[in-house]
């Protein structure tokens, strides 16, 4: 599932001036200038790309953490795993 990470990196790269090659699982979104409104757009693109629903509300700490690229990737993987299991 390494390609999930690559997809997430390439989606996030479009919302920052940092090149995709510099984005690692440890990269924090706030370090690369991704703001709340960017994250809303990123979530839309992730949902479209992976055909999933991500429970993300800007007002609430969701059960998924979205601080780093690695966390987003893990979140996507766990949603994908649940949707194939059901």
């Amino acid at each position: 599932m390494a390609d999930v990470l690559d997809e997430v990196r390439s989606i996030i790269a479009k919302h920052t001036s940092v090149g995709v090659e510099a984005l690692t699982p440890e990269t924090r979104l706030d370090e690369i200038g991704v703001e709340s409104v960017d994250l809303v757009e990123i979530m839309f693109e992730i949902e479209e790309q992976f055909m999933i629903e991500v429970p993300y509300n800007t007002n609430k700490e969701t059960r998924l953490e979205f601080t780093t690229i690695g966390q987003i990737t893990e979140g996507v993987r766990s949603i994908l795993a649940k949707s194939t299991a059901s």
Partner: protein
Amino acid sequence: MNRIAITGIGVVSPVGNNLEEYWQALVEGRSGIGPITSIPTERLNIRIAAEVKNHVPEQNFDARIVPLLDRFAQFAVIAARHAVSDAGLIFGEELAQATATIVGTGVGGQNTLDDGYFRLYGQNAARLHPFTIPRLMVNAGASHISMDLGLRGPTFAVASACASGTHAIGVAFDMIRSGRAAVALAGGAEACLTVGTLKGWEALRVLSADTCRPFSRTRSGLVLGEGAAILVLELLDRAIARNARIYAELRGFGMSADAADIIAPNAEGSARAIRAALDDARIAEDSIDYINAHGTGTMLNDATETQAIRAVFGAHADRLAISSSKAVLGHGLGAAGALEAAATALAIQRRVMPPTANFEESDPACDLDVIPNIAREQRIRCAVSNSFAFGGLNAVLVLGEV
């Protein structure tokens, strides 16, 4: 400067369509938010809203007229009829021509648009209903009020998203002060609870999945609402001469644009609108006893509004009290400011500050007296009603005792 009185109020709301039911729910903090029943919800992730209940168009309109009116225009006309009868106004030819009708709406005929597009793209219908265009236009609410009541003065719609109703009342206020109209019906109407609109709001990730908790640390976003409120504004001298019941005096109106972000609120822009309204009313900050806040229940709005209030009122911010009606009404977008101006006028007249309902825990970022859950019997000399819209457009009214 001419003084302006509020002499009539009509509402269509998620907590009732007459003024006493409306006021009782606000005072008791009884929320109109619940599971959505008026549209299919299978495709929605968020399935709650503050809907207007038991609305049967045929009970209010001739069956031949119903196809001409979108739900938002129906709300507008019903609220206007109630407001005029509440004010005890009878329109002769001269007064009808001197009466302005100004109705704010965020998006206009969304039900018509949504139904039409579903037929066209979803069901491959060959044609749309012939009244699709006149139903969906943003001015339909104002136009139908003028036709229904025979009002023939300046009539138009105002659109500034969540501030539309407040801008409409403010513009009407200016028109009477300047002598352009003798009486005005002003307010807002919205019926935006469609599958298409809700999917759009879901995608913004600002909707709460449980309820609206303004100023609470546990707040989880806004809840959409719908409805209408129309106020009757007239010259104070005229109201006194005809021995009208006066709810409150409309004292000031302030507007500003943030020129910053299309979505995020801005404390500086909000504060400028509040200051402009106080300056217009020619009153000092410490005359304000109560603020009916914009208070949407989003993390950002409630904290930013708190900052704006602190910036304008300084030490007096800790002596005044504020509450948000959106825990009870949801966010009625273009109707919200008008419903809240109505609540503010009633609060002044009845000397009761309605609470912020659904309140759970205080938030250090919203450290004002937000009247948690329990109404307060207290005289209100002057009050502020805030509306801060998407697009960075702010409108603020100052109301006072007569």
